[in-house]
């Protein structure tokens, strides 16, 4: 029996006020397990990103609870929650959000620096991770000198540098051409997924479904279907 990494129960989230008030998540419950790549798919506005935000501790739900490795994250103080995100979760944002004024290695080193690792050691560790994601020799370049696929790899290296238990990727292939997108997710599955790690991916991209363990389909703030992925 695999160990659950995330257990969400009865999650409800509203946005807006008055007539503009809309329900983004309607009583959503799910389990995510270590060793699996869980896709969350659905049309735009179905609540995928909201669900990922609630699960990762950056958006507080109006009702329901989220337990990550046995910790009820929404009962943590804001500082403890920040520490939780820093130590347990790696984020790969859709637009990468790399600092253009820092070198690639310094960008990757940021989570380590936030964990009070000395600058030199953090950059050395980050450089090692850049080599792991295939960007050897790119450490001293600014991110703007890299291609979209390479920037995505930098973002992955930044997410992985603290060895998080949970990796959250938001539309990882949205800014990439087809082949590069498939290569990136294939790389993640091959090199990053392991029995002690859970990967959640929000995507529209059917071309990468072969890498999923499970696929959750969302519609109007609800999980309407759970399917086995191509790698099951």
């Amino acid at each position: 029996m695999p160990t659950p990494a995330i257990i969400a129960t009865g999650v409800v989230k509203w946005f807006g006020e008055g007539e503009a008030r809309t329900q983004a998540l309607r009583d959503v419950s799910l389990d995510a397990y270590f060793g699996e790549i869980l896709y969350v798919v659905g049309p735009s506005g179905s609540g995928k990103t909201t669900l990922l935000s609630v699960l990762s501790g950056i958006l507080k739900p109006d009702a329901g609870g989220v337990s990550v490795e046995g910790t009820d994250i929404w009962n943590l103080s804001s500082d403890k929650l920040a520490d939780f995100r820093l130590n347990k979760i790696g984020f790969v944002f859709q637009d990468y959000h790399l600092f253009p004024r820092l070198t690639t290695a310094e960008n990757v080193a940021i989570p380590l620096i936030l964990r009070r690792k000395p600058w030199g050691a953090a950059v050395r560790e980050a450089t090692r991770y850049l080599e792991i994601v295939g960007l050897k020799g790119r450490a001293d370049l600014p991110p703007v000198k890299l291609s979209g696929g390479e920037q995505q790899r930098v973002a992955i290296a930044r997410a992985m540098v603290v060895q998080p238990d949970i990796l959250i990727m938001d539309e990882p292939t949205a800014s990439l051409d087809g082949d590069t997108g498939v290569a990136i997710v294939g790389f993640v599955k091959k090199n990053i997924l392991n029995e002690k790690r859970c990967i959640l991916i929000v995507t529209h991209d059917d071309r990468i479904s072969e890498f999923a363990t499970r696929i959750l389909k969302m519609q109007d703030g609800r999980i309407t279907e759970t399917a086995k992925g191509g790698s099951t």
Partner: protein
Amino acid sequence: MTGILKVAYKLLVNDKAKFTALLVGITFAVFLIVQMDAMFAGSMKRASATVINLGASMWIMDPAVQTVANTIGIPNYVLDAARSMQGVSYAVPVYSGGALVKLADGTYQSVTIVGLDDTTLFGRPELIAGKIEDIYAENAFIVVKDPEFPKLGNPHVGTEFQVNDHRGVIVGIARVASSGLFGVPTLYTTYERALQYLPNPRFTISYVLVQPKTPADVNRIKEQARALGYLAVTKDEFINRITDFYIYQTGFGMNMLIMTVMSFIVGLSISGQTFYTFVLENLEKFGALKAIGAKSHELVFMILFQTSFTALLGYGLGIGLCAFLITLAKRRLPDYAALITYGNLGLAFVMVVLIAAISSYFGVRKVLRIEPFDIFRG
């Protein structure tokens, strides 16, 4: 924390265009503030030149006197009374007035003439040429070598001139701590000769210079002078009185205030706006840092560090630039009145801290409001 501050530093200085704009804004503001205030301080020092140069501890004068330039004669009995006051070590008269000097080439030049007590020569300047005892010689004057000195044709010992149809001879050349405000040369002579050579009103003593026996006697002397209907002030009080006159009675102070406020607004406008734009451009990145696990206070430290670093660097550059230009100006224009004081530096520092604080406030507010979810949502 040093690591995150290094990130803040690199984000700031690697954005060369904005960093330069920020520095220019603060440097320019500091330069304007320090320059304006230095000119003010320099002018005020010049306005008090006679008080500074004579160096008396206390001055007795007519209560209506507001600056050393508009003396009101006081009767001789005040000098006698001062000498018999309790707590007075000694008291001497001094003459201070203006005159027209006719030079050897036939031109006229305004001068300030200071007549020192014949017996003591109290307040005499330091001589760099000639002998002080020569001041007792016939028609003797000592000229001060200050930026106004060339206006007398660069005189030397033995140079002759006329004062009020009296022959005058330079017997010494002196230096003093401060030259005057009004751009005229200064001549020293004895009190009695000053009275002989210059037309005078009924009362001839400009000031009675007093040396109290102890600092505790200052108030007692003031009370005794007040009882006579005159005003006794210490050297510092006289300087403050002169400064207050120029600040409050001439519009000088208001102009300085307006210029200082304008400098502050210019600095705040350039730096505040540039820093706010800098924060806005990096806002998503700050949001991403929050999502990754940066705490709010760490982001606040980053912004405070960036503004403080820029403000202090701009402060140093502004003062350096101001000092450089004042030095340069004084080389070309020896009578250029500008003086950087600790007060000026303190005022500029307060202004810079305010600019940094206001710039930080809007940046911090924006960063604290950004939600990591906004980054996810795009």
